Structure formats: structure tokens, C-alpha cells
């Protein structure tokens, strides 16, 4: 049997989000329900038509609670994807597959998180210590930023990336946030002097190499391409989808294979481009997972925007800014809009294709959205009619 590619068979037709803040009063469950209701309203689809859910394994609000609160109908597909922010785009991909294969007709993916006012996951020393953490954390690589700092220093050593290259990324995201009223960093400029003078969090990574800590919730609504054409909003089709867990990969402490600097995005990219009519040169705008700035060069290489080791140099000459070679993270991303495990990158990708972004790329017809690099990951290539 010849498989039928997922290409353009399902679309995102509704997006919703709460406000973003360091502290929001409502519970994660309440925030999730509000975001989902807004996304359904945006799509013009009644809650009782919802028959599919997808979320991250780290999502603390569960399908039973959410479905009964928002008023979903009989649900026939529900899926969870692991590995923190690596699961973001996979929630959309799984719904697209469910819709394309007839397992469901109206899907909702969501992320609700009070990371701004809630605990930092790395402070949970009970649940995070088993394999492979016992080989790294007791020696002081306690946090994701420490694990990525090790990879970053090696990358700088091998390929000559500088702190200014990472600064270019932080500043590009901040510039977009400055024009986005929903962004936490809406009113706060960032200069290269600010960046280079910032305190170190895990040398060579400084404060501005790290994402924000945010409370907020977001959701998307998905239907088949046929139905999408009759919805209230222009569809953002899932043109291609890929997940990636490379052979002999070890998660964020990926030190134990031949090339730790070739991460999961290489595997996800191979799958993504395999069934795509488009290539990296056709991408008008990209939303690239940015929990830490060095994930950008690693992802740019993995998804084929430049060669291995060229990701730092790629950031030069305003390449990531509006009007540059590849505008990225046009809402401000995790670094400067909100850190909600990358789900705000998905909704911003949809806005770009609708032409409603606060930092609109003129005529954008394709948008790549990626999930967390350095953990088992996922990506979707969105396009419009």
C-alpha cells in the first residue's frame, strides 16, 4: 500500500490565547478553557463539535476536565506528546493525522502553563534524577540552561560562533516583541551593549540567552481542508509535519554520540521535507523554538537554512529581522513574547498566513514552525491558499 502524505489535508482554522504575564490569577485549567473557547469562537465552530484533543505530556490540565468544561462532544481521538517543548508542533501534527484518517473531525490542541508564577521544573530533585540525570545533575549541570551551555561552548569552539551572534538572535526577538502589544517585552528595548553586559546564568549563556518565565494559555482548532474553506478565518494548512528522535539521542544532555551538535531537528527536518512540495528556500517566515538562543543556529542548520556550523554567521546583517533573509519569531518568541513551551510560535505562524501579525511579513504564504531542539522534537510547515 502506498501511503498518502498528510500534505494540506488538515488546517488550523482557529487560534486563541489568554493574556501573558508573570502572574495570572486564574488556574491553569481555567486559562486552558478560556483559550480553547476563544479559539473555537475564532473558528466559528461550536464546542460540541470538538471530537479530538492533543497536548503535551507536561500539560497539567487533562482531557476529561477540559472537555467537560468547554462542552466538547463525544471525543474519539486524544493524544499526548512527550519531551517538554519538543512536543509543541507534534500536537498539531497528531491532530492533522487524526483528521486526515477520519479518526476525528474537529481537533483542539492547547498549552496552559503558569511557569511565571509556578515552580521551576528543575527544582524537583525527586522526579528528575533518574537516567540519564544521575550522570550530569549531581555535578552541577542542574538546569536546562547548564546542559545547553555545554553544547554552546563546544559549538563556539568548533565553528567560531560569538556572543554577538547569540545577541543578534535575542535582539531580533526583542525587536519583534517591541511591536507586539501582547508581548511581555512590548515596551522594553534591548541593545547589543545590554546583551553583552548582562549577568551570566551559565557561562557562556547570559540572562538574555534565556526565555521568559510566563503564565498564559493558548489553543488552536483544526479541521479538514474541505471544511476549512467554509470557516470564518482563512485556513493555515499543515503542508508537512515531522517528528524526530534520532538514533542514539540522549535528550538535552546529548553528549554521548558521534556529533552532539547535530540534534533532533535534523531528523524531524528530513521527515518534514520528504513529503513537502517546498524547501527551505521557499519559507517566507519561521517561528523557531527559542527556549535558549543557541537553539536557533542549531535549528537553522537542521532544517536546512544553512550548512553545518554556519548558524552563527547566518544571524549577521539583520538576517533574522523583518526584511532579512529569514525573519524569525515575529511575535517575539519565547525569548521576548512569552514562554509557553512554544505554543505561541504556532499561533503566530497562523497569524502570519492570515496577514494579521503585529510584525507582518508582506505576502507571507509559508511559515515553518519548530518545536524544541535538543530534545525529541517536531515541526510543521504551514501554508495558505
Amino acid at each position: 500500500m502506498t501511503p498518502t502524505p498528510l500534505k494540506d489535508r488538515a488546517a488550523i482554522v482557529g487560534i486563541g490565547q489568554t493574556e501573558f504575564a508573570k502572574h495570572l490569577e486564574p488556574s491553569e485549567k481555567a486559562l486552558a478553557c478560556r483559550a480553547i473557547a476563544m479559539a473555537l469562537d475564532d473558528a466559528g465552530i461550536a464546542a460540541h463539535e470538538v471530537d479530538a484533543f492533543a497536548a503535551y505530556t507536561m500539560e497539567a490540565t487533562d482531557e476529561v476536565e477540559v472537555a467537560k468544561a468547554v462542552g466538547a462532544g463525544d471525543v474519539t481521538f486524544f493524544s499526548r506528546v512527550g519531551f517538554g517543548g519538543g512536543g509543541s508542533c507534534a500536537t498539531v501534527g497528531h491532530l492533522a493525522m487524526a483528521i486526515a484518517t477520519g479518526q476525528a473531525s474537529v481537533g483542539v490542541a492547547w498549552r496552559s502553563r503558569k511557569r511565571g508564577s509556578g515552580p521551576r521544573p528543575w527544582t524537583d530533585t525527586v522526579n528528575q534524577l533518574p537516567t540519564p540525570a544521575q550522570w550530569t545533575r549531581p555535578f552541577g549541570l542542574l538546569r536546562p540552561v547548564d546542559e545547553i551551555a555545554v553544547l554552546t561552548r563546544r559549538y563556539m569552539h568548533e565553528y567560531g560562533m560569538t556572543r554577538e551572534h547569540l545577541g543578534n538572535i535575542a535582539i531580533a526577538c526583542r525587536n519583534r516583541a517591541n511591536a507586539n502589544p501582547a508581548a511581555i517585552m512590548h515596551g522594553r528595548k534591548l541593545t547589543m551593549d545590554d546583551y553583552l553586559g548582562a549577568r551570566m546564568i551559565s557561562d557562556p549563556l547570559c540572562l538574555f540567552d534565556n526565555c521568559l518565565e510566563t503564565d498564559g494559555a493558548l489553543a488552536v482548532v483544526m479541521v479538514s481542508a474541505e471544511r476549512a474553506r467554509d470557516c470564518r478565518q482563512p485556513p493555515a494548512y499543515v503542508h508537512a509535519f515531522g517528528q524526530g528522535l534520532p538514533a542514539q539521542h540522549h535528550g538535552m544532555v546529548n553528549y554521548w554520540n558521534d556529533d552532539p551538535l547535530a540534534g533532533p531537528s535534523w531528523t524531524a527536518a528530513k521527515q518534514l521535507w520528504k513529503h513537502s512540495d517546498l524547501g527551505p528556500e521557499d519559507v517566507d517566515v519561521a517561528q523557531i523554538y527559542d527556549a535558549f538562543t543557541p537553539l536557533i543556529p542549531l535549528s537553522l542548520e537542521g532544517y536546512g537554512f544553512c550548512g553545518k556550523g554556519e548558524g552563527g554567521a547566518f544571524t549577521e546583517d539583520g538576517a533574522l529581522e523583518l526584511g532579512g533573509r529569514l525573519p524569525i519569531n515575529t511575535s517575539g518568541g519565547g525569548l521576548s513574547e512569552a514562554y509557553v513551551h512554544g505554543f505561541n510560535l504556532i499561533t503566530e505562524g497562523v497569524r502570519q498566513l492570515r496577514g494579521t501579525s503585529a510584525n507582518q511579513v508582506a505576502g507571507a504564504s509559508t511559515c515553518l514552525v519548530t518545536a524544541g531542539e535538543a530534545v525529541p522534537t517536531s515541526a510543521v510547515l504551514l501554508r495558505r491558499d
Partner: protein
Amino acid sequence: MLRPFVDDDGAPFFEYAARGELRMQTCAGCGEVLFPPRPMCPRCQGTEFAWKRMSGRGHIWSFAVPRPPLLPDYAAVAPYPVVVVELAEDRRLRLVGNLVADDDPQTGIDSVDPATIEIGQPVRVVFRDLEGLAVAAWTRR
């Protein structure tokens, strides 16, 4: 400080460390050396293992220097370097550990000035006590 979690697969590593030996899990069937330890050899699917003694020599592959916010015991000694050491035997065998002053493995994890550390510097293994468990650490020879 956090005590390393000793699971079934990794227990021999710590037993040998207590004797001052750096040994790595090795497939008894095909000879593949594995790290981190695991229940099956990914090359031949063997489930019998020996523990091969390493030279204890390697070089610094990379390092980070964490600063707060950190868990209290670590914040108290920050900034401290954490090194990833590539063993001389195989570049895939990279151990995360602490770099300690040359003459005293039990010295603090902040005993080496991070400014003196460079990628590529040769190191050799020493063993130190971490919360009652012998663990591998590194010193520049």
C-alpha cells in the same frame, strides 16, 4: 548536593569507582562500550555485560560555569565549572564531572578557576566522595 541515583544498569560503575577504577559497561557479545549504561546492547541486542577498565585519560570536550539561581548547595559554591571529558578510548564516551585541584580530589567543585580552563586540556580521573557515593572527577595533569 545531589547524590547520583544508582539504578540496576549503572550500579557497577559506582562499585568500581569505590575501588578507584573507571570501568565502562561493555557488551559481552560484541564488545561495544556503552555509556550511559543500559539494559541492552544497541548493536547486537545482547544482554550480558562486562565492565572494561579505562585508562582514565581524556581531554576537556566542553564546560559550563553555572551561576544562580541554583539549588542552595550549588549556589553556595557558584560559580563553579562543570566539565565534559572525552575519554581517550572513544569520543562517544564523554563523562560529565567536576574538575578539582590537582592534589586533593575531595576539595570543592569550585577549586579550579574557570578562567584557566580550555577545551582540549588533558585530564585524568580521580575519585571523590559525593554524598556517600564514590564518583569520577577530573584533574589536569
